[in-house]
């Protein structure tokens, strides 16, 4: 499992080249551009851009995401999600706003709006906690290949309502009040 944390004080994005293949979890402070392949989780605090040759198989958590490559898995965006004309997305999406150009392909369960933002924030808190797992949650079948390390990808709920229901227990303190 590769675990990496980089800080970019000068604001330059971290670039993962086209000849790079990462398997595991990747946490990046700031922005990032992916031209290679990632299997597992990637979390970027700011903007993530996936180039035409980029491929992510797993979970993406980012502030904003511009997708021009291929993604199979879940996407949690606290900001905008943009699909370019060459984008190919298969999986579940949670984002604050959404745009897809003509030519892009997308298939899956999508939640856009304030509920999705709450779900994305809860998911981010879940990934940071890394130990909060409920037995009731069902992992999304077929989302992780057998070749990928099972320990590197945590289970995720299938809908925003599930995440929202778990939100008080995920967020320590629960200052926003328990709902549902």
């Amino acid at each position, binding site marked *: 499992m590769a675990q990496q944390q980089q800080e970019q004080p000068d604001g330059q994005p971290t670039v993962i080249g086209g000849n790079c293949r990462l398997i595991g979890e990747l946490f990046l402070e700031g922005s990032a551009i992916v031209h290679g392949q990632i299997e597992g989780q990637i979390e970027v605090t700011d903007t993530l851009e996936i180039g035409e040759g980029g491929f992510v198989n797993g979970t993406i958590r980012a502030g904003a995401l511009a997708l021009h490559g291929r993604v199979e898995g879940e996407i949690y965006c606290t900001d*905008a999600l943009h*699909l370019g004309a060459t984008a190919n997305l298969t999986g579940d*999406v949670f984002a*604050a*706003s*959404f*745009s*897809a*150009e*003509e*030519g*892009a*392909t*997308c*298939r*899956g*369960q*999508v*939640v*856009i*709006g*304030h*509920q999705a933002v709450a779900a994305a924030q809860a998911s981010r808190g879940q990934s940071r906690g890394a130990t909060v797992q409920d037995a009731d949650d069902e992992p999304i079948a077929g989302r992780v290949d057998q070749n990928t390390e099972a320990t590197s990808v945590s289970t995720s709920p299938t809908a*925003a309502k599930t995440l929202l229901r778990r939100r008080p227990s995920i967020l320590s303190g629960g200052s926003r009040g328990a709902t549902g």
Partner: protein
Amino acid sequence: MISGFGRSRREAEEDRQPAVPRAAGRPVICPSCGAPFEVSLKAINARCPKCTKPMRFEDADLNGFCTQNVTTMGTVRVGRKGVVRGRIECGNLVVTGQLDGSIRTNGCCVVQAGGTLRGEMAARSMVVERGGSFEGTLEIGCSIKSAKPAA
């Protein structure tokens, strides 16, 4: 450089012409067979030249409570006070109110701020503005041609 100074009026008008010529008609893709063709901007209805399926191009503004199916190749607008439930097949869709149902858009779908869209959605392109919401199954670009037409 001052445009039009020292040149003929015809040259100045030619410079003002856009690089891409304006489209003479409305580009349409048949929802039944997927054949692209073009109709006049004033056309109300037409038939696909390949499969001869009839289609209408009227625009529809839906305001208030509405539970009916809408089939048109024009633009469907769900107003701010619109609460629509049903099956919609259209060319373009603009949602400012609430829309629940099965939607198939052969063009672009825009959910503006304050708009809510729930259900199964198939479109060629889509925009959900900040303040708008969408929840459901989304298919962009992959099955527009192969999807079954609305009853």
